[in-house]
């Protein structure tokens, strides 16, 4: 069986921007190549201004490459029909404040050619998916940041695209909202939807992505499977609950008896601040 | 595509697009101007006078709105009897809205009627100056109306208004040659009739003007006969003038007999001709009227003290009386 068409195929992308003065060219993206196969969740990470957003815009045809090419499921990004199979959530999106949540989804649905009952069903389904059924008829002007991000995600999904592109999906969102979004991304992955996201929040990328690329000053520095990239091959971690001091000393002794292995460290694992915050706030909500 | 290439193509397309539409727009513009559907460009003087803001509004396609506004201003000038300001304002108004008959008629009326009467009664000026001011106001009103007619060819009402002014007993004494004035008035009424839109009274008014012009009696008689053929035109003034013109044509005519034929009964003939006899200020000709009246009074046995010849005529009223002291 032939290899399936990649969901995203960026080949040797270069993008120069003209700076206002002295005709100096600024190279925002320098020879970046990315290939994402269907079903993958790919995280592009890098500091602000490293070329993440420009890469995504080029993939969506919002900017034209200086050289190189971008394609979505084999279709050139500069052509309109490449956008049939993609949903996009821009960084800090502002949707039309005068529309309600449902109206927003209907608007984008109609733009994709959906109509009638199919559209109504799709709108309800997505509102349920992003947990905004209660805010269905409220105008977006009254939405919180997290709600906006979620309606944005629903909007990106409206025509059931096979690829979803998310630019800093959790920027400026509080941890609860951030986790909701993370859960949504995981749901997308379960459904077999390819996700291409970029972020500078490493922890978040680590939690959801299976493939990662690191971009710095326009250049791709490192790329590959997340597990391959971050695993410390020669170490093993054991986490034990309610261990008695005797058990610990027995294990330590066992390790000491080994000729090849050595003990690096013992201690109590710490929860992350994020996890602590989430535990406290969700408990507070439940009670 | 480079930015300069794109801009170049755009500019070229813009000019080419302009070159295609230019002749079309020009021909439509010429057609509209010919039909009087687009007013001529604003005079620079008007732009200056109405002020920057109003000019901008007028240039923004709202000329009639500015005219409406100025008309209100002109009315307050009129109430304050500031005749120069009234005239100036109407100059601007008609420049903005040259196709509105009302402005031409009102502007000329303010000058030839209101301003002129004001000078008749203004005792603060010496009589000679009042007379000159009176005459100038009438001339100005006439000239204004004539300009309106040139701007609105085919408007019967403006023509008829001018004819009315030229035959008005209070106005024609301002012009040097009454006969020439009456002829002009008749020609003006004729043009109004020629537009095809004028009601029948304009035709009669044309005749009343012509009947007063010395030397045009034959022409007037032909017109009188033609008008008389239509029963709707048989009004006392027209009937009396028909009699006068017949008598002028044939001095030996038995005018009393004709009067009875025209008016039906001797009583009605006497009443109508008496009225005609007394209207001296309008300068209607009276050939044969005296003899007809004499004969009719005899027929009806009118006592001498009640004879029309013993009743006073219209009190003379005109520049000679107004400006005598």
């Amino acid at each position, binding site marked *: 069986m032939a290899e399936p068409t990649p969901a995203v195929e960026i080949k040797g992308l270069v993008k120069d921007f003209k700076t206002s003065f002295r005709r100096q060219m600024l190279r925002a993206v320098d020879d970046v190549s990315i290939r994402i196969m269907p079903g993958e969740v790919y995280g592009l990470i890098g500091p602000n201004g490293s070329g993440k957003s420009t890469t995504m815009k080029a993939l969506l045809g919002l900017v034209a490459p200086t050289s190189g090419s971008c394609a979505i499921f084999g279709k050139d990004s500069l052509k309109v029909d490449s956008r049939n199979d993609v949903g996009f959530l821009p960084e*800090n999106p502002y949707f039309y404040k005068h529309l309600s949540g449902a109206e927003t989804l209907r608007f984008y649905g109609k*733009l994709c050619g959906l109509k009638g009952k199919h559209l109504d069903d799709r709108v309800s389904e997505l509102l349920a998916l992003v947990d905004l059924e209660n805010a269905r008829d409220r105008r977006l002007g009254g939405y919180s940041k997290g709600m906006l991000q979620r309606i944005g995600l629903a909007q990106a999904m409206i025509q059931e695209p096979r690829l979803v592109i998310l630019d800093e999906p959790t920027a400026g969102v509080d941890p609860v909202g951030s986790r909701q979004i993370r859960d949504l991304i995981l749901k997308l992955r379960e459904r077999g939807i390819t996700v291409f996201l970029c972020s500078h929040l490493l922890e978040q990328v680590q939690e959801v992505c299976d493939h990662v690329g690191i971009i710095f000053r326009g250049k791709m520095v490192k790329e590959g499977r997340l597990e391959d990239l971050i695993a410390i091959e020669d170490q093993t971690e054991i986490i034990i609950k309610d261990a008695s001091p005797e058990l610990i000393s027995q294990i330590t002794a066992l390790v000491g008896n080994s000729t090849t292995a050595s003990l690096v460290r013992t201690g109590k694992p710490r929860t992350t601040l994020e996890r602590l915050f989430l535990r406290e706030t969700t408990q507070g909500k439940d009670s | 595509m480079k930015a300069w290439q794109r801009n170049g193509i755009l500019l070229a397309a813009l*000019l080419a*697009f302009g070159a295609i*539409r230019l002749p079309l727009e020009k021909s439509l513009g010429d057609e509209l101007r010919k039909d009087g559907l687009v007013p001529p460009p604003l005079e620079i003087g008007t732009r200056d006078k109405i002020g920057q803001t109003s000019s901008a509004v007028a240039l*923004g*396609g709202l000329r009639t709105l500015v005219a409406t506004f100025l008309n209100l201003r002109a009315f307050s000038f009129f109430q304050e009897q500031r005749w120069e300001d009234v005239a100036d304002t109407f100059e601007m108004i008609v420049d903005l809205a040259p196709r509105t008959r009302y402005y031409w008629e009102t502007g000329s009326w303010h000058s030839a009627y209101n301003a002129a009467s004001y000078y008749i009664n203004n005792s603060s000026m010496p009589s000679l100056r009042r007379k000159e001011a009176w005459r100038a106001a009438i001339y100005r009103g006439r000239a204004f109306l004539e300009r309106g007619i040139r701007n609105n060819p085919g408007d019967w009402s403006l023509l008829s208004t001018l004819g009315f002014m030229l035959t008005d007993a209070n106005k024609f004494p301002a012009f040097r040659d009454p006969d020439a004035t009456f002829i002009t008035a008749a020609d003006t009424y004729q043009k109004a009739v020629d537009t095809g839109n004028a009601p029948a009274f304009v035709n009669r008014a044309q005749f009343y003007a012509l009947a007063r012009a010395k030397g045009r009696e034959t022409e007037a008689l032909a017109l009188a006969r033609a008008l008389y053929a239509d029963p709707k035109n048989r009004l006392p003034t027209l009937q009396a003038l028909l009699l006068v013109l017949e008598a002028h044509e044939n001095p030996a005519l038995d005018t009393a007999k004709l009067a009875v034929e025209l008016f039906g009964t001797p009583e009605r003939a006497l009443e109508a001709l008496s009225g005609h006899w007394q209207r001296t200020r309008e300068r209607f000709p009276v050939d044969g009227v005296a003899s007809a009246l004499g004969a009719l009074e005899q027929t009806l046995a009118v006592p001498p003290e009640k004879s029309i010849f013993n009743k006073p005529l219209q009190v003379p009223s005109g520049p000679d009386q107004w400006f005598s002291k």
Partner: protein
Amino acid sequence: MSSITEPIARGSHFNRILVIAGHAFTQLVRMKVFYFLAVFAVIAIASNFFDLPQHEGPESIGMNVLRSIKSWSLGTMTLFSVVLSIVATALLLPKDVEDRTLYTILAKPVPRFDYLAGKLLGVLILVFVSLAMMDVLMTVVLQIRSSMILTQQIAMAQAQGWPQDAIESLRAETAQHGPNWALQGAVFAVFLRASIMASLALLISTFSTSTLFTTIISFLIYFIGHFQADARDAYLQAGQAGEGVFARMTALVFSLALPDFQNFNVIDAVIEGQAMPLMVLVKLSLIGLYYALFFTIASWFVFAEKEF
């Protein structure tokens, strides 16, 4: 999940343009644009009171007030439609770019032409609907007032013993100043002029960076457009009398590049009671369409290459 593998119907250009137009219309309506209609109602009713004491006979009773109603109403319509066309068009595009809503729209399978045409159409629908409402209001006011005037005129004419034919002529003339087809044509001409301005503002906004710039330039062109033809004729005639080549070329470039609104002054003639031949309206419509199409295509030409 079968639908994922099926090709998704993209819908026609026309449908998409309508969706975007409908949205732009809603957006403007929710900006409370229609409150202006209340102002218009006040103006239409107030213009009834600009009635001056009249001179002479029945023919001039109230004619002035009919003209006043028309010129105030059409004047307000012109002002409103031009301001709305320019400002709304100048506002909608940069607002979408600034709020990044444009990204979400263009990231859908929406050709850029559809987006532009939709925005323009939305503004035009709004202008058309508002003008139609104002037109109805004006026609009602005019109808009531002109029938009142006609009754007065005829009563006075009969009291003065006018013959029937004179009364008929008077009636016909008053009808010319009442609500009639020429007046509807004039309102349509107001709409046409507004559409030209909207499409021009669209073109300017595709390469301008601010709403303010687009608005100012558009208004400037609007005013120049009204005497552009005069300047052109004056220059061309002066050229024959030995004017410099440079001046003539400048005049030519000006008249080629800027729109000519002179012919729309036919609206003034209608206010003055002239009849507008149907052919004139047809020609004006064609000219309006020609401008709107050209400007829209030119906007697309710039916008298609634009990067965000």
